[in-house]
């Protein structure tokens, strides 16, 4: 069992979305500064939906939602993902 935060980090590590290694970034580090593009944001969102079996409502589909590990975890939690473990 790993936490939501760890799973988000693992997801960000396996794909080529970032140009900086996620392990070197803090939870509140700006992912856009680390190379995340607007295009990649959409595929990131779809991967998160697949991994956590959730759907992001339109109200969360904005740049800020995906700007850091913290904001992603916060968004997932707000749509019902259990923060501690899955």
């Amino acid at each position: 069992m790993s936490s939501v935060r760890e799973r988000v980090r693992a997801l960000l590590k396996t794909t080529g979305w970032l140009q900086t290694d996620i392990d070197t970034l803090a939870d509140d580090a700006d992912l856009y500064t680390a190379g995340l593009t607007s295009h990649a944001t959409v595929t990131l969102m779809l991967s998160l939906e697949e991994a956590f079996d959730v759907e992001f409502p339109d109200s969360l589909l904005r740049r800020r939602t995906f700007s850091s590990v913290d904001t992603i975890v916060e968004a997932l939690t707000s749509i019902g993902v259990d923060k501690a473990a899955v």
Partner: protein
Amino acid sequence: MTDWIAAARAAGDVAARHADEVDRQARFPAEAMAALRDAKLLGLLVPKDEGGPGAGIADIVSICHLLGQRCAATAMIYAMHQIQASCLVRHHGGAAWQRAFLKRLASEQLLLASATSEAGVGGDVRSSVCAVEEKDGRFALAKQATVISYGADADGILVTARRTPQSPASDQVIVVVSQKDARFEALQGWDTLGMRGTCSNGFHLKAEGEVGQIMPVPYADISAQTMLPTSHLVWSALWLGIATDAVARARAFVRAEARKKQGATPPGALRLAEATGQLQLMKAGLVSALRQYEAALGSEDALSALPFAIAMNTLKITSSQMVVQIVGQALQVCGLAGYRNDSAFSLGRHLRDAHSAALMVNNDRILANTAQLVTAVRDDSGLLA
């Protein structure tokens, strides 16, 4: 009619007088731009706090539509200038240098240009090769800018670049460069099919200045919330202007025919009716997108929401297609009189100008971007929401 619209009409008369010559010689529409400057229409968006009249996007859209009917190159220059102005007005973030520059925009009626396109990335404006280099409170920047419309005649240029030499291509800022701090080396000329008066030459641009000239807000936000929507609105407005004038010429042609053959509806009237319908659709699309933008203004969330981005992208794609279609229909109505370059019904310039619309940030690029967004959205808003 506001004073601004009346002044824009007068400037439009000047633009129309020189439009054919500007097109033929591919020269800067100096007379029309001087008229716009003298009427203080360049600083229209500057807020009252910074010494401007604080006009809104609807005023600019209306003026672009008016100018587009007279000289599309003048309208495009005015539109591109106002895109830059709106980025400054909405994203100066209270920074001292930017606010002082806005004051100058109002008092001196500065003309602003844009250098987003770059050798190596083409039309992908959300990527930069060049980077800002900062040292001791100063910056230096060098960009192979493939297209800077009226670059030689602008007072200031908003240049996109990577935030630092280490930043990824997508981590960009806008630097406001004054003409006097910049050096331009010609890269390529501008001998094109249409929009010839925009003088969109390529330059190797080198600039220096104070760090304060770098806009504090990331370009990603400026692009999504302001540059993209305002570009698509003002461009669509002037393209609508081109289409409107083409239909007006077709109407004049049909009316002249009707006068000659009293009692019979000229055959071209059918196509004219068809073109009028298309024009109505094009106008409706613009006005509805304008209302959507006005409703979103003031809410960063609404401005960066996906359905909003889809709506603004779609506006650009449809208007750029419709302008070509409508001018084509008008040409069908006017026949050879429209095809000739020396007739009152001539539509050659309209058609050539209209064809730039789909290329000015390539429609396929915008469609590919939209294709990703439409995969992500799900709720459809109500009819009148």
